[in-house]
């Protein structure tokens, strides 16, 4: 029981990331009819927003402290971050400490801008082209974005810590009345799950309860008819693209403490998230979320030693196996609708 609960929890944070990325992917599928291979790159850029903000806040000037000597006997140099000098030590330190959550605020406008530029500058021209062309051009874009990030940040992963308050783990099992020291869960992973839940809830209520969302949902169901109503669906779809980018971007920001950002993380996640979208059903938002969590948790379960001893290596391929089985038995995925992406 404890081990099962532990694996369930372990699957949640990865599942959250899958769900958030897949949500944006499927939004773009459903509304724009575009297969976006550059969506993983947006997730990666989000993570690097966190890196950037953390670096900006850590920008320091050096002062010499004549009273202390370093190990060579020279006067020690002390680095003071500008923010600590400007806003006082405590507040400045808190800012630096909270760089990752703060980066969400910082990243949202950036990601929306990235999304707008991508849609208006490139993807718009591909609405009427075959899906193969869409895949190919966004694949090219993903390579470009990845290489740009690699140039600025290098090829090595950059560790980006969570705020001190959320560092370390807590005994989740003991809280629920299980034996202590069995279910130890890092705080930040819990934060990530809650964050994902909030974002998913926000996106769903946005689509459910606003006129804008209603039009978009109608557009996902039948684009042509909505166009005939005289509603400027294109502009709304541009905004949708920005929204999808913001969701993936903030997912990336918050993921930075879990996985040190590197330039190819976008591609790594993208392949899995495509699988998630297909399993959930192309163009189905609840499907994407459900499949994201499902696959995240399955992945975590299959990495249990008990499972691995029966089926060695299953943790590496479980997602693909599930995807293949589902695609063959339920062609439209778990919650797919008829007529989406069927040529």
């Amino acid at each position, binding site marked *: 029981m404890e081990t099962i609960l532990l694996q369930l929890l372990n699957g949640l944070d990865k599942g959250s990331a899958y769900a958030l990325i897949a949500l944006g992917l499927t939004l773009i599928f459903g509304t724009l009819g575009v297969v976006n291979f550059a969506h993983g790159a947006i997730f990666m850029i989000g993570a690097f927003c966190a890196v950037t903000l953390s670096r900006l806040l850590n920008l320091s000037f050096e002062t010499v402290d004549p009273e202390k000597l370093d190990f060579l006997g020279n006067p020690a140099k002390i680095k003071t971050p500008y923010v600590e000098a400007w806003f006082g030590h405590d507040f400045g330190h808190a800012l630096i400490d909270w760089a990752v959550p703060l980066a969400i605020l910082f990243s949202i406008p950036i990601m929306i801008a990235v999304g707008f530029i991508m849609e208006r500058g490139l993807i718009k021209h591909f609405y009427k082209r075959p899906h193969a062309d869409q895949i190919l051009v966004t694949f090219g874009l993903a*390579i470009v974005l990845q290489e740009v990030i690699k140039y600025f940040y290098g090829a090595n992963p950059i560790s980006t810590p969570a705020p001190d308050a959320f560092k370390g783990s807590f005994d989740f099992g003991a809280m629920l009345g299980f034996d202590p020291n069995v279910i130890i869960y890092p705080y930040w992973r819990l934060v990530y799950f809650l964050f994902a839940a909030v974002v998913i809830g926000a996106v769903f209520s946005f689509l459910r309860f606003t006129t804008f969302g209603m039009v978009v949902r109608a557009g996902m169901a039948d684009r042509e008819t909505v166009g005939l109503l005289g509603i400027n669906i294109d502009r709304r779809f541009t905004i949708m693209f920005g929204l999808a980018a913001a969701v993936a971007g903030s997912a990336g920001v918050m993921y930075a403490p879990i996985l040190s950002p590197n330039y190819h993380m976008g591609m790594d996640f993208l392949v899995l998230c495509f699988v998630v979208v297909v399993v959930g059903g192309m163009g189905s938002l609840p499907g994407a979320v459900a499949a994201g969590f499902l696959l995240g948790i399955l992945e975590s379960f299959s990495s249990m030693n008990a499972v691995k001893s029966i089926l060695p*290596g299953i943790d590496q391929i479980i997602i693909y196996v599930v995807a293949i089985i589902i695609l063959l038995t339920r062609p439209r995925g778990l919650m797919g609708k008829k007529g989406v992406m069927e040529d």
Partner: protein
Amino acid sequence: MLGKKILGLNKKDTRFLLIVIALTLLTPVLLQPFAEGSELAQFNGGYPDLMQKIAIFGIFAVGFNILFGLTGYLSFGHAAFLGVGSYAAVWMMKLLTMNVIPAILLAMVVSGLFAAAIGFVSLRRSGIYFSILTLAFAQMSYKMAYSVLTPLTNGETGLQLSLDDPRVLDRAIEGSSLPVTNIFGLAMNASHKVEVLGRVFTFNVGYYFCAVIAVIAFYVAIRLFRSPFGMMLRAVKSNQQRMTYTGLDPKPYTLAAFVISGMYAGLAGGLLAAMDPLAGADRMLWTASGEVVIMTILGGAGTLMGPVLGAGVIKYLENIFSKINESVLHSWFHWLPDGIEDVVIWVFARFTGEGWHLTLGVTFMLVVTFLPGGLVEGLKRLSKRIREGKTKRDKYDGSDPEHHPAPTKRVAGE
């Protein structure tokens, strides 16, 4: 005459094939146009490693094009077959003999079987679903090569030759060092250098072996394109509904195309191992699958020459661009005023050396956006423009898309 009787090709295709043969035979000369030691010598591509890669990836792309160019099914997992071919070939060299012929035969057989299994499942879906299924299968193979299948693949180290391999046929003649790949005793890495007018031409056994196989593979592809089977594959791309209501079953046609193109990939993988006897899982990574897609599109999908052209251009640029570093750039632009020179060098440096992938990505976006028919279509347009410029025909002629629909989907040379 020669074409019709022996090759079964019409005049135009025979001429085309002869040109291709001439070009492949002369590659060591053609890619080495600049004198040794001159400023431009770094643009020479006539060294065995690069020429072998061009021939091998040419085969890979030609095979991929049989599936994608003709049937329109975009596989994003073709590198898996390349990887499987490499593993099979290395095993043959470990167990039986260093002669490359059995190795590449086994590579083709194994990858063909592998493709039949994956194709049988993947082809039950089409469009984007097919792409994602093939992608999933390839990723799965990649992950398995690193984990469960380590006894077969040797995991992260990659599969290599070792002195304790059985090598049943070669046992008697083996010395104390690792043997080299050969064809009936002629070593693949043997080269003959000729110096003419300050240019050093390298004639390498390995390259010529690859070249001969590439020409055969290309010839088979021409035959296939011109055959009723090839026409059926284009019918699959054009209208599957009409096809079924005409009494044809598209499934076996697409599956056959998938297996054939998988075998081409396996052949390419086997040749890679024949040139350098090791195999690693990273050959199966999905970016490697993306690379063959890029080659085919860049050259022109659905055309005969396109994939070869695409593979050549990409492999050449990859090698040359990767070699260009800041000091090379400095030697080019030293005549510019200092400030401007720095800027120019900075810009160029982003796209060369380490930045080669950036160039690749940008090229790819530009080609897909502005030249969906690839280089072949670009060349056609160019030659057309030149001809029209000469005869000063009506300028509206040929620029009306309504009456010149979708030239990209047609087969080159028709």
